[in-house]
């Protein structure tokens, strides 16, 4: 254990636990006597071994600039573990590091730079900025590179979700940003665009200074700053651009930069953002973009972009203020050559492009082999008011692709059992038949709902349910429920049920009708008799399989028996 790091309590409670040499270094590390520093520096001449290690650790533990400078001079000779010991003492080495960077000879300067790079000492960034601003030489180049690396590290640290242990990165950022802002003000003196990049990385999308510069084309570093935004592939700069897209009052020049950039790192960053429809600032910013250069090359989009990127590209483009022709170009290309995800997104993007050209592409999408694409197209059919849409949608309800059928049902949600039941009484026979058949097809709850209605406590509701079942051509499906009505307490319901059972071909129906012949009501007996007669005739049997329309134009209403009690009148 290094003398500078061992637990002092151990040596107090159990003096035998530490070696005499460790005790010496412990005392030298903690001594208030300044003579300890030159003593330890002299011990560094050992060059290695426990004396050297102990001296390094003790010097790092002491608050003495001369000692820290001596340690830095040994930096290149230190092994991994020794460097770790030195890094642990970096919080006390600030003065020595600053002096080494500003005034140290070349070996000391390089050692200090290496140490700062390895230890991530953000406190030294202001000093590095001062060196970086100096005349173009090797030192300023190294300082610029190190500043950028440290700023990137700090930015990543802030962006990560790691819990803050020790110093808060946002407090460090505040101090570093202050020095970088001063450097930006001195840009005309040093003309180091790398320092502008470091400033942009740390400033973030809401920095007042950054926004002020970007809103002032005559500012000394406006051009340089825009150039950095337009060319830098630094992930933090790219993150700033995409963050600004979702921020309010984004400077126009940033919107322009976003519109124009086509380099792959930027495109990857732009297309990875989570486009939030509910973010009004982002919607507004996108609406102000008149084009997106990265989406212009449709071949590139279809061949080089990942499926997710294709979808994001067309979604973003649809949200921009670009012309419809511009949008249709990408949508068309994606629908023809894109991935499934891209085609689905392209289909959805058509929502933003009304008109004949869009309709044409939408109908083209209905023939897509992928159900997801078809479903996306189906969902827009009704609102686009394309002729023949309704019948096509009704057909699509029977699609073998479940998602297409679901989309068609969703589009035809107006044909619900509730709507039908609410309007049933005001519809004429033809409408009841036409609408009822569609409702039965679209609303999957129809059989269950009709069963509920058939078992209703209200006599009028039960009769109405029989009527609806007949109009919707659901009698064969509900035969058992209708047979149950032969036992109804009300003779009118029993008679109506017996009358309608002529359209049911199940074997137990005939038996039930035979039983109904012995009903106490003559009307029920008559209806049962007629139904049995209809079921026995070959013509009626065929009719039962395919009930003939009661009125011209209606689909398949059950013909009223001449002697049966009309249900409507009974109601």
């Amino acid at each position, binding site marked *: 254990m290094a003398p500078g790091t061992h637990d002092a309590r151990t040596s107090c409670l159990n003096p035998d636990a530490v*070696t*005499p*040499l460790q*005790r*010496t270094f412990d*005392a*030298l590390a903690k*001594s*208030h*006597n*300044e*003579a*300890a520093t*030159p*003593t*330890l520096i*002299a*011990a560094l001449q*050992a060059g290695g071994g426990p*004396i050297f290690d*102990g*001296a390094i650790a003790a010097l790092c533990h002491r608050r003495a600039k001369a000692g820290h400078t001596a340690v830095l001079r040994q930096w290149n000779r230190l092994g991994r573990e020794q460097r770790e010991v030195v890094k642990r003492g970096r919080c006390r080495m600030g003065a020595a590091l600053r002096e080494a960077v500003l005034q140290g000879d070349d070996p000391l300067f390089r050692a200090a730079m290496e140490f700062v790079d390895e230890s991530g000492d953000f406190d030294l960034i202001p000093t590095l900025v001062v060196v970086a601003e100096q005349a173009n030489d090797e030192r300023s180049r190294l300082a610029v590179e190190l500043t950028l690396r440290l700023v990137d590290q700090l930015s990543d640290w802030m962006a990560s979700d790691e819990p803050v242990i020790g110093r808060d990165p946002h407090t460090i950022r505040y101090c570093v940003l202050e020095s970088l802002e001063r450097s930006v003000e001195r840009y005309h003196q040093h003309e180091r665009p790398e320092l502008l990049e470091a400033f942009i990385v740390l400033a973030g999308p809401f920095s007042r200074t950054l926004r002020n510069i970007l809103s002032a084309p005559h500012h000394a570093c406006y051009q340089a700053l825009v150039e950095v935004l337009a060319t830098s592939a630094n992930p933090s700069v790219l993150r700033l651009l995409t963050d600004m897209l979702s921020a309010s009052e984004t400077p126009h020049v940033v919107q322009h930069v976003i519109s124009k950039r086509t380099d792959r790192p930027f495109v990857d960053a732009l297309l990875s953002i989570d486009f939030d429809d509910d973010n009004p600032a982002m919607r507004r910013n996108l609406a102000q973009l008149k084009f997106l250069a990265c989406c212009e090359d449709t071949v590139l989009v279809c061949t080089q972009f990942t499926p997710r990127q294709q979808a994001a590209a067309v979604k973003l483009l649809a949200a921009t203020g670009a012309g419809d022709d511009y949008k249709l170009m990408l949508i068309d290309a994606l629908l023809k050559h894109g991935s499934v995800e891209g085609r689905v997104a392209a289909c959805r993007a058509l929502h933003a492009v009304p008109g004949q050209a869009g309709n044409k592409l939408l109908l083209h999408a209905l023939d897509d082999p992928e159900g997801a694409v078809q479903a996306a197209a189906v969902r827009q059919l009704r609102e686009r008011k394309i002729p023949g849409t309704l019948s096509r949608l009704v057909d699509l309800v029977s699609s073998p692709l479940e998602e297409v059928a679901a989309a068609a049902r969703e589009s035809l949600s107006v044909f619900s059992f509730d709507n039908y039941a609410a309007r049933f009484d005001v519809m004429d026979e033809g409408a009841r038949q036409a609408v009822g058949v569609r409702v039965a097809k679209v609303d999957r709850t129809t059989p269950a709902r009709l069963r509920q209605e058939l078992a209703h406590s209200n006599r009028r509701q039960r009769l109405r349910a029989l009527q609806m079942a007949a109009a919707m051509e659901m009698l064969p499906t509900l035969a058992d429920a209708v047979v149950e009505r032969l036992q109804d307490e009300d003779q009118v319901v029993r008679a109506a049920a017996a009358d309608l059972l002529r359209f049911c071909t199940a074997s137990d129906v005939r038996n039930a009708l035979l039983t109904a012949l012995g009903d106490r009501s003559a009307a029920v007996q008559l209806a049962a008799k007629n139904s049995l007669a209809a079921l026995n005739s070959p013509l009626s049997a065929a009719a039962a399989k395919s009930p003939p329309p009661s009125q011209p134009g209606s689909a398949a209403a059950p013909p009223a028996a001449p002697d049966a009690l009309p249900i409507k009148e009974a109601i």
Partner: protein
Amino acid sequence: MTTLLTLSSLLAEIGDNFPQSGPRRSWSDLGAYGIAAVIVAIAAAVAAQLRKRNDMSEHCDKPWKLFRELCQVHGLDRQSQRLLAQLARERRLAQPAEVFLWSQGFAPEGLPPALQHHAARLERLRQQLFE
């Protein structure tokens, strides 16, 4: 001034006629008290100096004090301290405390002539300080 001196002699004679008054005291009678006070002051100063000398928590830059501090840490007796101090002097170390970090300095073959006859004692000290 003359008036003041005259007045003081007059005042000094005021008590001469009291029945219980003893012989008149002169300044020379206070000499013993003065000497005692000086001795006490010197003793206090020496004590303070000694205390300061051994106060290792005080911030300072004194190489020999650091040497003593390390002697205290290792619990060395007077004789060992003197021997180590002599070794530091003979080796002409810039900082006497370096002797605690330089085990080669204790090697018998390189010892200065003045310390040759203490080689065994120094070897024991080396073991005590480094092993």
